[in-house]
């Protein structure tokens, strides 16, 4: 077995493009769910809107990429308003139902034949819509060391992506520790009490939905740019639930938990996959137990088992405060 290769693959994934995408998706969810108590099950919809908003204007309409980013932010704000206006006055569960449906509607519209000309149907869009972005890449060659390996484009995405994650995390840290963040956490606990103290709860929930959604759509920017392609089926409900997994791994309502959660998530997925794959090909794991084609399913099974163990032995996540969670059970 090639342990160095396993280490290289695993570490590269731990700080890689996918980790950035999932960290951004989960930072948005942390705003929604961790701090405000909004059950948004449609985060994939925000990512899809972000991804299509950078690809479609550039490829189908010849708009510069920089304007496409602004379009993406604008679209995700509109999407948040569409979700929030009818549901935020209702009980929390309605938002969950509406968001999960809305995200699917976004995906179905994207893959529908009607808009094939602009959105590319079920094949999505592939093309050099990120060329303005990669033109700024100062790295002529990629990174190839025994423990980390990125090609030139990925290296540029990783560096800009982590800068974005750091900036957003910093701003989030200030915001959630401000009086504004206090109102958000109070809404998570009991909206009616917050109303009785003269706060416009509806407005705050809308702000939370918009901010978390815009951050999620930035995850979509990274998703689309890093692959130079957008496929509608990448933005299914599984993406939302993986983002929740990331958030819960790290521990909800902690600023750094989405980042660390995403790193652990991708570390485990790639590590398990590489070990199994190497084990099977080198006959360390017998063929009657696991075949080569089963590896990618089995890694998710093991991942699921690990999550169950986490929920049993450390229900607050990696960073969560056990006392705080115990209080929740009492309340």
């Amino acid at each position, binding site marked *: 077995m090639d342990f160095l290769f396993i280490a290289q693959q695993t570490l590269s994934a731990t700080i890689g493009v996918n980790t950035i995408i999932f960290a951004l998706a989960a930072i948005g969810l942390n705003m929604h769910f961790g701090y405000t108590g909004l059950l948004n099950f449609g985060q994939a919809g925000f990512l899809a809107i972000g991804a299509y908003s950078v690809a479609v204007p550039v490829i189908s309409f010849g708009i510069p990429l920089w304007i496409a980013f602004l379009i993406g932010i604008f679209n995700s704000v509109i999407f948040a308003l569409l979700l929030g206006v009818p549901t935020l006055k209702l009980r929390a569960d309605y938002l969950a139902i509406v968001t999960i449906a809305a995200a699917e509607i976004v995906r179905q519209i994207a893959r529908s034949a009607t808009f094939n000309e602009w959105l590319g149907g079920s094949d999505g869009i592939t093309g050099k819509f990120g060329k303005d972005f990669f033109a700024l890449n100062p790295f002529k060659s990629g990174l190839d060391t025994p423990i980390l390996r990125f090609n030139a484009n990925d290296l540029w995405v990783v560096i800009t992506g982590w800068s974005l994650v750091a900036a957003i995390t910093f*701003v989030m840290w*200030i915001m959630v520790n*401000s009086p504004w963040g206090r109102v958000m956490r109070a809404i998570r606990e009991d909206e009616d009490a917050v109303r*009785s103290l003269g*706060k416009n709860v509806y407005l705050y929930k809308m702000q939370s939905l918009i901010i978390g959604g815009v951050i999620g759509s930035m995850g979509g920017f990274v998703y689309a740019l890093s692959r130079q392609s957008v496929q509608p089926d990448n933005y299914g409900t599984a993406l939302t639930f993986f983002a929740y997994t990331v958030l819960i791994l790290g521990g909800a309502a902690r600023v750094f938990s989405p980042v660390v959660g995403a790193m652990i998530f991708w570390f485990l997925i790639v590590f398990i996959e590489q070990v199994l794959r190497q084990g099977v090909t080198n006959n360390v794991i017998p063929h009657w137990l696991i075949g080569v084609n089963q590896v990618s399913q089995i890694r998710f099974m093991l991942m699921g088992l690990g999550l169950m163990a986490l929920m049993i032995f450390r229900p607050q996540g990696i960073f969560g405060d056990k006392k*705080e969670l115990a209080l929740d059970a009492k309340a």
Partner: protein
Amino acid sequence: MQKPKSIDASFALTTSPTPGSAKSDPILVADKIARQFGGLTAVNVDHLEVQRGSITALIGPNGAGKTTFFNLLTGYDTPNSGTWSFNGRALNGIPPHKVARLGMVRTFQLTKALYRLTVIENMALGARGQKGESVLRSVFPWMWRAQEAEIRERATAILTNFKLIEKQDDFAAALSGGQRKLLEMARALMVEPEMVMLDEPMAGVNPALKQSLLEHIKELRTEGKTVLFVEHDMDMVHEISDWVIVMAQGEIIAEGTPASVMGNQQVIEAYLGAHHNEDLSANQEGA
């Protein structure tokens, strides 16, 4: 904040003890308020005035519509008909947070302490006009830090008065039921209300804490605030209220001083039933 005109508990002596009677200086006036749930009329109040600067108790048997009436007055529920005003300002269609901003702040029958916030955070949340609560300014801490310090100072003072100061850094969920009631009331004071609406402030509170809660409510009157509270504990009603309003089956059936109300035949009947002195077995034989 508006300065109270006069703190005059003697209004009770000059006011007529009849349902819906006029007060010399009403802060809250309600007219023809009705709320139906399907076929059930939960609240049907013809006219009600609450005297400014008084402690007024709202009593009545279970299911009389007291809490529903509270919800209607504070914007948490909408009546099918009726009008009501606070400080002369009509409150129809005004959402709860605006009612609170106008100076009428309520507490809840089932205490709504914000569990996973600390006691001091619960308090600080109550302060009005916080610059740092705006989404844009929240990002620039230097814009709100000074104000936050002032708020914390005020919160600390109130917590000290309520003897919760040692608990200020604990999560609210770690408080006892009685302490949560105290916290909820203390938090309501952070809003600097003119009128405090307390929904069963004594429910589930042990006798020692009860006495301190009573003192705090009396203090509110001394500060010129108006208190309207729902309560089942008759000793408490007797001890602190200037005026008592009795509801039964959604209507106001009596009003008056605590002493006069408790001797009122209609009130006794509402609580105990009209036939409470009759022999049940005699009735059964008749049937």
